[in-house]
């Protein structure tokens, strides 16, 4: 009897678990590759998965094998010209022969290349990153429920059984039920003793002894554990406070921000955007770009639109403050902001911006990061950098850093959002 079975609808991804094991094992290689990828990619490609190369040497599985050397005879088909005794020069001069061919799984093989999917890529990408200072919380629409201990109950599942509590109850029950019996027993013992001393008749003694034994037996029959002793931990669902956060992305798109700088800034925000959308479902994002006046835009415009003009940093900060006050009343919201600029600001603008930032924005915000993208050959500090530098010295929730090359973006990004160590 032959069976014909259609298995096409059965699970396809049987190897997924093995693939995942492989990735876990070679995480270091993959992490390094991911870092390099970020530097090379354009903004639109940033989100895709990518190829990872692992040196063949590192993933080979060893075994006892013949190396080059020794005596071999090789049988091959397709002889056209050779007769017995012909001499053939050794290929590549060394003593290789077929030994070399068989040992080839080590060195001669190419690097092992494989593709990461988008999810795998992002997972590794944003490992160990966290929004800093996320502590002030506000009650949101009570979507989250948290289970909280609420004493003990008499019914429950075995996994909730509280052994100490049960033992306590059992002990109490045994003491309570055994108390009267024990008293009676004591009495009976005393009577028996007295009767023995007084020399009562054997019949009477036997009666008393029987009573003592009976009481003892009743005491031992008290169960050590009974159904009524069981106590289970009880939990109730309590609405949990949900952290709400908003992230402001501020970018300078003035004329002095040339394509290279804009590209750097956008790369940074792309990372930030991906990171936030991935980690926090409830993070709201506000995109603000500015020339000499600031605009709130959607993410597409923010990342892909080109526009230029003069520079007034102050305008952006002011807009952020307005939005903040209007929409994100500070007691309910964790406010974060990241600003990118080349630091070219004129006249009173830097000083004014700096003061505004210090006095108006920092008290509202949990964390404010400033990223400067300087000219390639710029050495001195920009005007904005100099002004902001003062804030840094006496504000704990302000950070500033410079990014000159695409390779630096990822390390800088990781630096700014490193997971806070539990002190």
């Amino acid at each position, binding site marked *: 009897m*032959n*069976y*014909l*079975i*259609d*298995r*096409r609808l*059965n699970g*396809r*991804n*049987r*190897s997924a*678990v*093995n*693939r995942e*094991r*492989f*990735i*876990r*094992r070679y995480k270091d290689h993959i992490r390094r590759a991911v870092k390099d990828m970020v530097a090379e990619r354009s903004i639109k490609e940033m989100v895709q998965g990518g190829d990872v190369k692992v040196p063949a040497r590192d*993933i*080979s*599985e*060893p*075994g*006892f*094998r*013949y*190396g*080059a*050397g*020794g*005596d*071999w*005879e*090789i*049988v*091959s*088909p*397709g*002889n*056209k010209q*050779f*007769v*017995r*005794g*012909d*001499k*053939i*020069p*050794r290929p590549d001069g060394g*003593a290789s*022969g*077929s*030994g070399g061919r068989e*040992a080839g799984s*080590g060195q001669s093989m190419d690097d*092992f*290349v*494989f593709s990461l999917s988008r999810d795998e890529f992002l997972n590794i990408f944003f490992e160990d990153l966290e929004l800093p200072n996320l502590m002030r919380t506000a009650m949101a629409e009570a979507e989250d429920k948290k289970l909280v201990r609420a004493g003990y109950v008499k019914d429950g599942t075995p996994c909730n059984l509280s052994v100490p509590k049960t033992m306590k109850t059992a002990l109490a029950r045994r003491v309570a039920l055994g108390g009267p019996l024990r008293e009676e027993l004591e009495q009976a013992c005393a009577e028996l003793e007295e009767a023995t001393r007084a020399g009562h008749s054997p019949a009477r003694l036997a009666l008393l002894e029987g009573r003592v034994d009976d009481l003892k037996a009743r005491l031992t029959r008290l169960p050590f554990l009974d159904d009524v002793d069981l106590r289970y931990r009880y939990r109730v669902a309590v609405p949990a406070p949900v952290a709400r956060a908003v992230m402001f992305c501020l970018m300078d798109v003035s004329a002095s921000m040339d394509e290279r700088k804009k590209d750097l800034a956008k790369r940074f925000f792309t990372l930030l955007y991906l990171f936030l959308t991935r980690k926090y479902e409830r993070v709201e994002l506000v995109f603000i770009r500015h020339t000499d006046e600031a605009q709130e835009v959607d993410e597409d415009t923010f990342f892909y639109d080109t526009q230029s003009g003069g520079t007034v940093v102050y305008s952006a900060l002011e807009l952020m403050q307005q939005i903040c006050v209007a929409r994100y009343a500070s007691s309910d919201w964790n406010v974060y902001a990241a600003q990118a600029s080349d630091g070219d600001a004129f006249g009173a603008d830097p000083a004014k911006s700096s003061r505004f930032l210090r006095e108006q924005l920092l008290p509202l915000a949990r964390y404010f990061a400033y990223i400067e993208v300087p000219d390639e050959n710029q050495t001195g500090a920009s005007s904005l950098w100099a002004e902001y530098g003062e804030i840094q010295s006496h504000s704990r929730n302000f950070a500033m850093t410079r990014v000159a090359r695409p390779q630096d973006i990822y390390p800088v990004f990781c630096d700014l959002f490193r997971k806070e160590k539990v002190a």
Partner: protein
Amino acid sequence: MSPLPHGPEWEFELLEHYDQAIAETAAEFGLDTYRNQVEIISSEQMLDAYASSGLPLGYPHWSYGKAFIRHEQAYRRGYQGLAYEIVINSDPCIAYLMEENSLMMQALVIAHASYGHNSFFKGNYLFRQFTQADAILDYLVFARRYVTECEERYGMAEVEEVLDSCHALMEYGVDRYRRPQAPSAREKEARRTELAEHRRLQFNDLWRTVPPAAAADKAVASTVFPEEPEENILYFIEKHSPRLGPWQRELVRIVRKLAQYFYPQTQTKVMNEGWATFWHYTLINRLYDKRLVDDAFMIEFLHSHTNVVTQRGFDQEGYHGINPYALGFAMMQDIRRVCEQPTEEDREWFPELAGSDWQKSLDFAMRNFKDESFIAQYLSPKLIRDFRLFVVADHASKAELEVDSIHDDQGYRRVRRMLAEHYKRENLLPDIQVTRYERDGDRSLLLRNQIYRGRPLVDEEANEVLRHLGRLWGFPVRLEAVDAEGRVDGYREWRP
């Protein structure tokens, strides 16, 4: 019987018709098979099957992930096609067919796998000795569950460590000969009474007066362990490792059992493929003779068949050594030819074969040989001429390679012997055996590599494997290389 319908697309109903026709034809030739189970799978599932060496389920391990990624990459980029079929030595014999195959291809594959390979699995002595076709699937289920349980209980890293080390020694986890079964209690009892009876019959009071042998002799004899060298290294570790816990021993056993399951397949590649190819060719031709399939079907069939049995010359593009399908098929066909139309030469070379019943002779060859002995026995001068085989000697002592023999009268026997040697296990795997376990001393383990024709081990890899071995053993491990005269030539050691 009316002709079978033919077309590019297959349907389940059509496959059943074809299967039935093939089954009837196979019965005419007296093929003895396990029951068949044909399963249609998609290309993704085929890739999954590739990664686990064709087994329908395996325990999780990163190396399978690596294999999967490698095959997947090669396939997606078009460097590699997928096999049309995978067949599993089990009862019922499971054959996986790709859904992409055309109707003709499915018929070919059913004939090849479900009747060719299947009868080979059932008949060949190596498979009969070493694999239990009806138990393998259950064992795989057990292995997978056991490994997963160990991972839960002892941690993934711990389990992976043991499996990594076992995999490095997998090729040395194979028994080449069956171990004698341990005697049952009843047999032991019977032997004891027999011995007692023997002693009683031989009783002579005189022996009482002979002084007992010196005790020292016995002590010396017992220090050497194992008494005989053990070539199944994993077996030795499982039974004697001083370090491993019970669950680790069970893991070693699982890897060992799987290695043993694959052992017959590694030893019969040429025969197995040759046999299966011979039978799909013969069965489909018979269908054609019976007018069950039409010319279009036959043309398509021959096209695929010739692709499979092409042997490229050593200097041609795409040459990857000798094609086991080509060699095996040619030899099977040749045996039939020698039986049916022997020439003078054949009568001289194969006096017993020439003129005999080809079905019986071929069946005998299938049952009682492995690649090495099969080639040594049956490769005919005609085939050596057809393949234009030649032997090149690559000796370390000589500066140049030398053509050793070609397809001429002086060369036939030597070419045949060399080709047979090519499939010998020693020729592929260095000979390494456990020779000494210092049970009463530092618990170190001594292995001996008998150097075969001056061939050294790959140095770095050998050290790596030794490290794995040490991890399983937990005490010092030494590997000595010994040349043909028994002199120790090299020495490496691993210490914890």
